[in-house]
């Protein structure tokens, strides 16, 4: 079944063509990677899917529902969660609160019930606390629940960001360069982690990544972007030997 369908997606910043005619069909439980040199428009694609920007042209449907024009918090509620290239945790807030904030959309009580601490508020808050602690427990972060998230080491901040995304109960997870700044050991752990959460939370994963180790290791399908355009698409093996990909990354050989 097609979970996410992106058709002819185009976006410009002023005169800069950030994304041009981007197409993508994501099947349920697939793991697809988008790669490309810096400035190729990968993150812009994520920002368009999650509603941060509104595309100039094109269609995005998620579970056969139009996504374009919806506010980000509504798109999250449909089941699309994401992480960020440069970690964007709520730095001053505790690890627990970082995860609890992601329950905003699912906490079922009104402002009045919160102001007066009515039974439904107490009950829902207890549930949110429980679920958040459960998730932190799975990620091995529960003993740090009250620590401000800025005090976590880098690798754990990355994990917390994934945990926070999962707290919104997504069916599609967008990971924006999750291996950025990681050493080879951490990268190996990350690969295992991504595969593990995919099966544990029944996720479809769309991944932006620079590190070939990650991409070649786990992606079932790869799309290559350069200057906003899709230059290649296929299995890791096909991509590795694709002349245009090699050209985009390494440049063309000049005949003397």
């Amino acid at each position: 079944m097609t979970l996410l369908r992106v058709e002819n997606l185009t976006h410009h910043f002023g005169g800069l063509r950030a994304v041009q005619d981007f197409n993508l069909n994501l099947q349920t439980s697939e793991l697809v990677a988008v790669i490309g040199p810096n400035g190729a428009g990968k993150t812009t694609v994520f920002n368009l899917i999650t509603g941060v920007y509104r595309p100039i042209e094109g269609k995005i449907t998620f579970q056969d529902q139009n996504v374009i024009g919806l506010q980000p918090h509504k798109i999250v509620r449909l089941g699309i969660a994401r992480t960020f290239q440069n970690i964007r945790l709520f730095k001053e807030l505790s690890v627990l609160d970082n995860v609890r904030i992601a329950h905003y959309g699912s906490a079922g009580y009104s402002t009045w019930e919160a102001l007066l601490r009515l039974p439904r508020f107490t009950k829902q808050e207890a549930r949110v606390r429980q679920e958040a602690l459960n998730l932190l427990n799975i990620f091995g972060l529960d003993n740090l629940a009250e620590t401000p998230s800025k005090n976590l080491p880098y690798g754990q901040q990355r994990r917390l960001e994934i945990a926070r995304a999962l707290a919104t109960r997504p069916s599609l997870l967008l990971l924006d360069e999750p291996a950025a700044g990681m050493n080879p050991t951490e990268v190996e752990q990350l690969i295992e982690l991504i595969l593990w959460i995919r099966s544990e939370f029944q996720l479809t994963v769309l991944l932006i990544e620079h590190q070939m180790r990650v991409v070649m290791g786990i992606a079932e399908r790869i799309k290559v972007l350069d200057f906003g355009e899709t230059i290649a698409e296929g299995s890791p093996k096909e991509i590795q030997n694709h002349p245009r990909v090699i050209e985009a990354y390494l440049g063309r050989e000049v005949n003397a």
Partner: protein
Amino acid sequence: MKSAFWKQWKLPLILLLIFPFTILLPKFGIINPYIDLVLKYVGINIILTISLNLVNGYMGEFSVGHAGFMAIGAYVASLLTVWLFPRSLGPFLFPVALLTGGIAAGIAGLGIALPSFRTRGDYLAIVTLAFNMIIKSVLENIEAIGGPSGFMGMDKLTSLWWVYIIVIVVVFLARNYVFSNFGRGVLAIREDETASGLVSVHTRQVKVLTFVFSAFLAGIGGGLFAHELQFINPRSFTILKSTEMLVMVYLGGVGSLGGSILGATVFTVMMEGLRTVLQQFGISQEWRLVVAPLLLILLMIFRPYGIMGLREFRFLVPREERPEALASQREQVQATRQTKEALP
């Protein structure tokens, strides 16, 4: 069993025990009218500081015109008690007047919030500044409510015990708000608005809601203020009053209810102390006006988070949010977790 009961009801019981003193002490002249007045000011300023802290501290926006909301609360409440309510029923209908003043201020807050929060940044500061000035000019130009010479005729309905009760209610409501989804959402917006939206926080809703709540509280503070002075005029609600509120917020601490209480108390007592000192040395009282803005500049440079920035007194944290409660719930989670496949 008894200790569990004591633990749960300690704070309400202590507050209840203090209550009779707020009636008896002023009544029998055990504290003189001046102390009584200062205590009331402290209470009113606590309400105003919490109000502004919700926007400037918790949400991280910058409102500089909260005196405008205070003015609306003050005038609406006063018009009700003077023109509409029978004098004899005044003391009983006082809460209704305050509440109406608060609601009127809240509605004005909604009018400011809806357009202002379409964008982020300095926009709100400019809008609230203009709002503060507009309110003052409008009040000065309505002759029916006294125009520039002000409005009077209110009974002295603001008693110490009323202030005491209302402060407790306001702190209670604000605490509940802050320790809820909405409070966390607002703090998240302060940290990173885009990321908040992308983890399901309805950013616009939370911002508007918080601003309206804040304006409502400022309106309540204004109503109390009016019925203490028994005389209000538009000049009581200028940018200078807003500046005082800013100082109390940044002195006590941003994003903290305990800080608001502390900041309001310290500032109020300090300003009163200054009055005596200036009198002693024969210096003009005008100099008091310099203190608030000067203090604000110094605070912004040297202590931008204030005394209690982003921290909270233990008694202001709901019991289930305290460290030991969280620890026990965490242990429960660890104990009950079905050991599935271990996470890499």
